[in-house]
């Protein structure tokens, strides 16, 4: 968020009386009830309530948003699978860009741009060597693209200047086609100008390429570290994993004691230079970009710049609730914090 005490919001009218606030302080004792009519008082309802930890007031209803961060964790999308005459596997998806108002914190609506009506977009998953065919339809109101991280020809890179796939107009469409490689954890996002805005508004998703030999059996989940600049001042007000602030804080992620947990962690955070992931009371193996089957680090804290990603593997030896959060306290207290509930 803001670095100085005198942040200028673009919505200049808001908080016009900031200075007066301090000046206008007066004697207490007068606990006046709101005189403005309308709705009554809303009381906090929270398992970790009180001043014990930062959290938002109330809950976000996934049914209203049309997506649930808990479902986004595990809804890997392998596409429609066909075996080509050559013996190769073809995977096909249709991804639609659309404008959609979403609730990023209880009571706070944000005019997002989405892939398939959700933020983050679908987690596209293929196996190394598969042929990927992603039909991208732009049902939004602005020019959008899908730019994949991976190895592919320029014409399918989804950046302006790379041909029709680099500039898909509203009502237009383009089919990106390339081989799934290299194996690892990647991402895709819109690469239209202005880039920061197209990413900040929600056009991104995870893209997983599994190694041919596979990875050990595990409980897998996808976490995209993101945030929202709700007042358009180029700094974020709401931080999260998979969009909704405090979603896994309000409702912890349930895992089994001793089972292998694999987290596909991607940082898409706009405006802030760094993001991080810290796990409490445990250590994990870290595979940067997931391009190697050997971990490079055994740690409890890693950091990622925007677009950086990696795979975390961990087993919880004890039952109980274990916190995970950005080890940038500000991000954590503005929404990027959650719990694993180990049973």
């Amino acid at each position, binding site marked *: 968020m803001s670095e100085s*005490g*005198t*942040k200028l*919001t673009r*919505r200049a*009218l*808001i*908080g*016009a*009386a*900031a*200075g*007066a*606030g*301090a*000046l*206008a*302080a*007066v*004697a*207490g*004792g*007068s*606990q*006046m*009830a*709101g005189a*403005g*009519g*309308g*709705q*009554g*008082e*809303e*009381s*906090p309802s*929270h398992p970790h*309530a*009180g*001043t014990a930890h*930062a*959290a*938002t*007031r109330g809950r976000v209803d996934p049914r209203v948003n049309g997506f649930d961060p808990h479902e986004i964790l595990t809804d890997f999308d392998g596409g429609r699978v066909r075996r080509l005459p050559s013996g190769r596997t073809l995977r096909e998806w249709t991804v639609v860009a659309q404008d959609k108002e979403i609730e*990023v*914190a*209880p*009571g*706070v*609506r944000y005019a997002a741009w989405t892939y398939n009506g959700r933020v983050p977009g679908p987690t596209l998953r293929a196996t190394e060597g598969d042929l990927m065919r992603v039909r991208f339809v732009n049902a939004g109101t602005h020019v959008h693209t899908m730019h994949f991280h991976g190895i592919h020809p320029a014409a399918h890179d989804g950046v302006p200047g790379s041909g029709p796939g680099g500039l898909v107009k509203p009502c237009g469409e383009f089919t990106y086609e390339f081989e799934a490689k290299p194996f690892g954890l990647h991402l895709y996002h819109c690469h239209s100008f202005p880039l920061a805005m197209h990413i900040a508004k929600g056009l991104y998703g995870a893209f997983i390429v599994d190694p041919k030999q596979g990875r050990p059996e595990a409980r897998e989940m996808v976490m995209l570290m993101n945030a929202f600049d*709700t*007042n358009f*001042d180029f700094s974020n*007000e*709401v931080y999260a994993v998979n969009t909704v*602030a*405090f979603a896994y804080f309000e409702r912890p992620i349930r895992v089994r004691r001793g089972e292998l947990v694999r987290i596909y962690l991607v940082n898409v955070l706009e405006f802030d230079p760094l993001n991080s992931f810290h796990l409490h009371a445990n250590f994990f193996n870290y595979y940067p970009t997931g391009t190697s089957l050997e971990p490079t680090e055994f740690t409890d804290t890693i950091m990622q710049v925007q677009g950086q990603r990696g795979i975390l593997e961990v087993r919880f030896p004890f039952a109980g609730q274990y916190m995970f959060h950005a080890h940038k306290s*500000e991000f954590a*207290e*503005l929404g990027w914090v959650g719990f694993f509930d180990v049973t």
Partner: protein
Amino acid sequence: VSTEARTPATPQRLPAWLLGLGPLLLVGALVIALFAFDLPGLERRGIPVEDVAVERTVLRPGEIELTLRNDGPDTVGLAQVFVNDAYIPGATISPVEVGRLGSATVRIPYDWIEGEAYEIGILTSTGGVIEAPIEVATETPAGDADFFGLLALLGLYVGIIPVSVGMLWLPFVRRVSPLVVRFFLAVTVGLLAFLAVDALIEGFEIGTSGPQAFGGASLVLLGALAAFIALSAVDAWVKSRATGSQGFRLALLVAIGIGLHNLGEGLAIGSAYAIGELALGAFLVVGFALHNTTEGLAVVAPIAHERPGWPRLALLGLIAGAPAIIGAWIGGVAYSAPLAAFLLGFGVGAIVQVAWQILPMVRGRERGAQLLTPLTTAGLVLGLAVMWVTGLLTG
């Protein structure tokens, strides 16, 4: 042609009150019709405007309470509260939907630390941020008897006492020649001019800082006009009774004008005390006391050649000084920027009216007398200079 034929008959049949009320009823009916039939031109165009001002900030141990005022045309939804970049789950907002000119109370459980700064933000339903910075956290004094007593004492220090002391110049101005009295009257006008300028600027500053829906800085000018008109009326009334001397009448007006000004000063002191900004309290009080002693001179200058009794002199001192106490109470308990702007403006209007009344006395009564002699000019400038110098002491 007969005269009867030319006179229209209808208006005489209707009572006068109905004729007076008619246009009002018509415009009322028009407004009702506009809304009832949803006539074109009423729909709100464009995006909703969120314009919310922080009216009051109260700090108690473990709690921060904000009073917000919706300054804009549209209803604003208040969703989340953060303090220093951390959302506060236990914060209560009542009500969460605030209509135009409506207010909401936000209560934040928070273990704030004395002397530290806090950045409070209220996230609206559209993602806008209402900022409520606390520059220096300090407990807001509770509104008990001690609090009122202390503020009364402060008002006494800066109001009644210095004004009364200043009035002790009366024997001195009695001894000196009429020419020197004119000089002191010129000094008085200079003093008053300074106070008017000072209050006007402060009024504009406060008026533009708070909620604007009530008029903002224009409240200062409205207050000034109201005071000018009201004091002119008082003056005319006193004149019409014609019992009192002209000198005492003027002295009374000066006392009223200065009293209204001191109301504004008390307001500033009370509100500063309430938010703990009177850390340099002693210094401030000394400054105001010196500053206001000169006001006593202004009160007695018009009665240099009269012999009012002690009760009348005490009355003048009370009228000029006591409002500082009332102002301190208002400032300490019910401070609001629009009210302060209006009251400061009221003081300005009163002072201008009084200066206007004194000017003829500066000129003197003899035929062909000049207003700006070297002596009176020196007096005017000296009045400004004295106030400026003693004003430096009030920080």
